[in-house]
């Protein structure tokens, strides 16, 4: 029987592959100019796991982040650049080879402060060129790497400390060593499949002496355990061949997480932080005999707090008695560890601190809110402002123009900010909308009201943005429902059908029809209600850790159908997909109808489709059971049957799916290692890599008006792909054409100017990039254009050229931006520039053609350009503005030609007809400036400058010309007419016909 099942399974799994060959389109080679843009925010930054200083160049600092990759600073931390975007973004350790510090860098992936929301790593990487390119060195199953140490006398000898899997047994843990630069590795210290290497260090004066701490730990979706009989601190004096426990002076009983540090300036001085059974025995221990004996020195809160999250000890490289310990605030001792004071104010949760290599006053601190710098030995800290590492759990968008993005962050509250802003999206554009850990944030569909929450729905806020009024509205226990279990990341939802409706999920589904003032429970307990998963007060192991983060058997996702308000889907963290078709009266658990899904796999997201009432998608995430496979299914019959929509292309577990609103086969999948897109309903998936790091995508939304795909990432903030609509049109027919223009809605010539300059002060800040503006001509090339000419023009409908643009040549989607302008006017030549003359006027509203010539073939696309109706201008106003602008444009060019003629005549008469030449020269001095420079040495403006400035003022305004402008125009026109008649008279005294002068048209178009 087993064999038959197996054979069927093989057959079944072959079907999609067979289909794949016929109907699939691999999207990845066609993404072309579709490019992700990052809008941060960076003002609260995100969690840092490991800091690393270059051993000889104090300008170079590395930050290994919890979810945002590796960043390198070339300016001692003033600014950072990402150097690891193509790989796993969860970082455990960064190590620089001390023998080759400019080039050789090792990165161990997988964060090592294992809170509930940590991501995973996928091995060890090496760069041999200072971080430009990387190669993988193995340890694919290591999940989290705590330390990497290169022997300072021998680059071939490397030690790797692997903490290992958090949610499952694994043998890929402990200490590994290579003596051949990573060709072969030996496991030199291993305890068991539950116990990993939490910390490791080398004696700075003797590379044969190593210390390693082993830690027994395990997390499930509903509990955490730190500590056991296996945790221990080891020492080797023979380069890792043999290891001995060094516990003389340690507390009795089980041990938890242990840190280890050797004072660089004195090899006898060691520090460890011990998590022990007895509270009084926890804390900082010191050895003055290289580990032969230990003494407890301190067990203050700052030293013992949450050992699994804070365990790093750093000793001042120049003073063995200056010790820094990570913690809630971070602590520093200047008496060898006896007493500590807090580090200066910065974001709480300090994971690592390093000292500048030359100056102990300078320190870098890695926190839950980014990197901080101190210049005074840790008393005050300033934040690095360009690390957009924000860790979103969820995002949503509204329908404003430009739309706003809302979301909650790990340990950094809830925020909303604009998708675009004048000069880019800056720190000051973001607004705080909730404290604590932030999760879901939703805009009321019609009112200027925002819902947000903190962990475990301890507070759910309803914020009236206009009146700045806050009310807490979370459902509370009642007699009938006396205990509510909310997830750490509690689900909420609004309704497309009833704007004031608001849902929350505990183990029950709660519904309010009045924005959270009154609540009704509309379901039974929808979870498995498994009591063995509800003992959170026992969680933590040796150090109790009941923060609420492990609350389980709860509802995690709620989706009301956009087509029918009575159809509601609910997914639970213990594996149930429940649906009601009558507004909550009856519920059906559809999970038994899903095949191929392990029991109790966390339902991370349900997407109720716009394509059919019975259609929905469900994404399941098993990583908290050690199952890293992706699971996503689709139903079209209310969950009676579910179809697998994941292909082998997807490398890691997924958390979210977003459907396209128009093309049912187009889907977007958020995975732990980035975004995937399918064009064929899930038969094949392609990873989207254009400026999209391999970052954990926790939530995706599709903005309905702009078709922007908006992603909440857990480590790189909000990432947007502007207007994905071209993807809807890609199919085999289109790909068989030589060039395909994508459909475009009419373009609106936006008059909204954004803002006045950007001022100063943002030089070292992250600024989120804006999306493109203007008419975006989009077309598909099935193959890259490399040889021969390919040009593009914008033409009016009569085929007259308006402007030449350079077309894109890449395979796939190309996007060319036209800013609606014609060429700027030809301006008279003077001594200096006439800045007004750099203005290009816009075309009138109407139809235009984009014409591409590729080799001998011509391709045309007609599109429409519209005026901005927000300005409130009448048709007459718009016509008046255009007419006046073009009149001045023509005057400017006429003057340019007149000066050209005048210059030529002057040259011809100079020395021959001195009087005429002199008169010409005098006239010229009134037409253009003939002295000065372009800055503070500028000359008195003449006719050209006055004309061009007024032209630029009128052309640049959204409004019709004002009376003042028209009056000014009259003055300029009069002066120009006088000049023209003066020139005409002078011309008669010369012989222009003897000169080979260009005609006006030749002059303008040359």
């Amino acid at each position, binding site marked *: 029987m087993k064999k038959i099942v197996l054979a069927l399974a093989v057959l079944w799994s072959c079907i999609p592959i067979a289909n794949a060959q016929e109907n699939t389109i691999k999207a*990845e080679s066609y993404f072309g100019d579709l490019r992700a843009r990052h809008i941060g925010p960076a003002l609260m930054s995100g969690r840092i796991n490991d800091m690393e200083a270059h051993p000889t*160049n104090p300008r170079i600092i590395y930050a290994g982040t919890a979810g945002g990759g590796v960043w390198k600073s070339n300016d001692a931390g003033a600014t950072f650049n990402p150097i690891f975007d193509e790989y796993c973004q969860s970082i455990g350790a960064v190590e620089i080879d001390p023998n080759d510090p400019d*080039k050789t860098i090792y990165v161990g992936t997988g964060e090592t402060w294992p809170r509930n929301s940590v991501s995973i790593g996928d091995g060890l990487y090496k760069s041999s*060129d200072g971080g430009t390119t990387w190669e993988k060195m193995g340890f694919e199953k290591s999940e989290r790497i705590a330390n990497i140490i290169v022997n300072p006398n021998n680059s071939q000898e490397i030690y790797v400390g692997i903490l290992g899997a958090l949610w499952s047994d694994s043998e890929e843990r402990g200490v590994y060593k290579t003596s051949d630069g990573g060709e072969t590795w030996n496991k030199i210290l291993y305890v068991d499949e539950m116990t990993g290497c939490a910390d490791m260090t080398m004696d700075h004066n003797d590379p044969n002496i190593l210390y390693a701490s082993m830690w027994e730990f395990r997390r499930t979706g509903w509990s955490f355990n730190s500590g056991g009989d296996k945790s221990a601190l080891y020492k080797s004096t023979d380069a890792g061949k043999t290891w001995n426990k060094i516990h003389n002076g340690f507390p009795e009983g089980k041990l938890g997480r242990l840190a280890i540090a050797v004072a660089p300036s004195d090899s006898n001085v060691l520090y460890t932080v011990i998590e022990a059974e007895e509270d009084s025995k926890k804390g900082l221990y010191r050895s003055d005999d290289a580990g032969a004996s230990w003494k407890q020195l301190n067990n203050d809160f700052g030293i013992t707090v949450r050992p699994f999250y804070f365990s790093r000890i750093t000793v001042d490289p120049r003073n063995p008695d200056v010790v820094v310990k990570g913690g809630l605030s971070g602590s520093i001792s200047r008496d060898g560890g006896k007493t500590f004071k807090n580090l200066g104010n910065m974001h709480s949760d300090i994971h690592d601190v390093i000292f500048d290599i030359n100056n102990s006053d300078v320190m870098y601190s890695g926190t839950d809110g980014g990197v901080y710098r101190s210049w005074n030995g840790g008393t005050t800290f300033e934040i690095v402002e360009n690390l957009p590492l924000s860790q979103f759990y969820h995002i949503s968008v509204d329908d404003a123009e430009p739309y706003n993005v809302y979301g909650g962050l790990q340990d950094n509250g809830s925020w909303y900010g604009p998708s675009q802003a004048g000069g880019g999206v800056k720190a000051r554009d973001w607004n705080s909308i909730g404290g604590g850990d932030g999760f879901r944030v939703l805009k009321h569909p019609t009112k200027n009201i925002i819902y947000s929450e903190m962990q475990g729905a301890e507070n759910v806020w309803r914020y009236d943005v206009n009146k700045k009024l806050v009310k807490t509205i979370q459902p509370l226990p009642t007699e009938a429902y006396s205990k509510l279990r909310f997830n750490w990341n509690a689900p909420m939802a609004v309704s497309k059908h009833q704007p004031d409706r608001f849902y929350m999920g505990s183990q029950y589904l709660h519904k309010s029809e009045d924005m959270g003032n009154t609540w009704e429970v509309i379901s039974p307990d929808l979870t498995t209600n498994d009591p063995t998963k509800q003992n959170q007060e026992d969680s933590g192991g040796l150090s109790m850790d009941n923060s609420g983060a492990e609350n389980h058997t709860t509802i995690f996702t709620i989706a009301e159908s956009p087509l029918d308000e009575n159809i509601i889907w609910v997914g639970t963290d213990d594996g149930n997909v429940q649906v009601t078709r009558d507004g909550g009266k009856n519920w059906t658990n559809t999970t038994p109808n899903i095949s191929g899904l392990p029991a109790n796999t966390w339902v991370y997201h349900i997407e109720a489709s716009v394509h059919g009432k019975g259609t929905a998608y469900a994404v399941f995430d098993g990583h908290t059971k050690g199952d890293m496979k992706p699971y996503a299914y689709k139903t079209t019959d209310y969950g009676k049957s579910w179809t697998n929509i994941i292909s082998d292309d997807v490398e890691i577990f997924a958390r979210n799916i977003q459907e396209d609103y128009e093309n049912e086969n187009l889907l977007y999948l958020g995975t732990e290692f980035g975004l995937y897109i399918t064009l064929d309903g899930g038969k094949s998936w392609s990873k989207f890599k254009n400026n999209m790091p391999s970052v954990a995508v926790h939530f995706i939304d599709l903005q309905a008006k702009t078709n922007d795909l908006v992603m909440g990432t857990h480590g790189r903030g909000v990432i947007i792909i502007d207007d994905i609509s071209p993807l809807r049109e890609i199919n085999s027919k289109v790909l068989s054409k030589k060039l395909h223009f994508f459909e475009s809605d009419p373009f609106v010539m936006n008059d909204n100017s954004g803002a006045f300059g950007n001022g100063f002060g943002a030089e070292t800040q992250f600024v989120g990039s804006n999306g493109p503006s203007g008419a975006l001509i989009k077309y598909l090339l099935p193959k890259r254009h490399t040889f021969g000419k390919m040009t593009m023009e914008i033409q009016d409908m009569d085929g007259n050229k308006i402007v030449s643009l350079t077309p894109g040549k890449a395979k796939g989607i190309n996007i060319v931006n036209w800013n609606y*302008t014609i060429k700027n006017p030809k301006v008279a*030549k003077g001594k200096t520039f006439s800045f007004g003359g750099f203005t290009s006027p816009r075309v009138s509203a109407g139809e235009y053609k984009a014409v591409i010539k590729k080799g001998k073939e011509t391709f045309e696309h007609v599109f429409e350009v519209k005026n901005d109706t927000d300005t409130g201008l009448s048709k007459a106003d718009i016509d008046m503005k255009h007419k006046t602008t073009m009149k001045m444009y023509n005057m400017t060019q006429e003057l340019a030609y007149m000066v050209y003629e005048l210059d030529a005549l002057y040259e011809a008469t100079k020395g021959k007809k001195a009087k005429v030449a002199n008169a010409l020269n005098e006239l010229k001095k009134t037409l253009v400036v003939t002295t000065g*420079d*372009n800055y503070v040495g500028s000359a008195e403006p003449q006719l050209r400058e006055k004309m061009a400035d007024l032209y630029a003022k009128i052309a640049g305004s959204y409004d019709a010309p004002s009376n003042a402008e028209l009056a000014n125009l009259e003055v300029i026109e009069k002066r120009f007419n006088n000049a023209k008649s003066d020139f005409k008279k002078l011309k008669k005294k010369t012989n222009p016909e003897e000169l080979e002068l260009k005609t006006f048209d030749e002059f303008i178009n040359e």
Partner: protein
Amino acid sequence: MLSVAFVLTASITAQTAEEIVANYFENTGGIDAWRAIEGMKMSAKVNQGGMEIPIEIIQLKDGRQMTRITFQGKTMKQGVFDGETLWSTNFMTQKAEKSDAEATANFKLEAGDFPDAFLDYKDKGYTVELMGKEDFAGTETFKIKLTKQPVTIDGKQEENVYFYYFDTENYVPLAMQNEIKQGQAKGMIQEITFSDYQEAGDIYMPYTMTQGIKDGQSQPISMDTIEVNPKVDDKEFKFPEGETTETENKN
């Protein structure tokens, strides 16, 4: 007239970076034709926010070069190198100003890169390395690392590495990337793409390029003409001691 049949040579299996570079020269006119180039004058119009800015780039085999930009009939020179001095016209005063000593020294190191950094690269002390095949914007390419002489940045010596993406079908470079070494963008990756390969004298050259930050905005430039071995007055390159550089009256 070169035949388009050169594309067929792509069937040769290239294994090493050296072979790929050799194929590139072979497919674009042959190494002798490349070596025969003494100089080039490239004319283009750059479109910036509706402004069409005519520019002219002159490069000579001995390392001298300049870019002439014309605004409102006035020509300004930028990035002029006379063999010793690197200088540009200040936009405000329209006077010539020298680049800082480090920039000039680094520029000198690459003075032999015309007409192509890869041409006789070994003689220049450069090395090439094949990094493998990589997808560049949907097209399969050979990624080749070109290491030039180290440059000095803010007093510290740094490696000078460029990555080129050669089309596996026809061996011409589609793009080049390198780390920006100075200024506010230090540490970011610059990307230049090449397309519209057409004849320029006896060789094929990309007539369109885009320059920008990798994964960011870029500025295209399309050549109207490329003149091979143009006549150029030596005086054009000389740093004008104590005078303005407004030497031309082009309209």
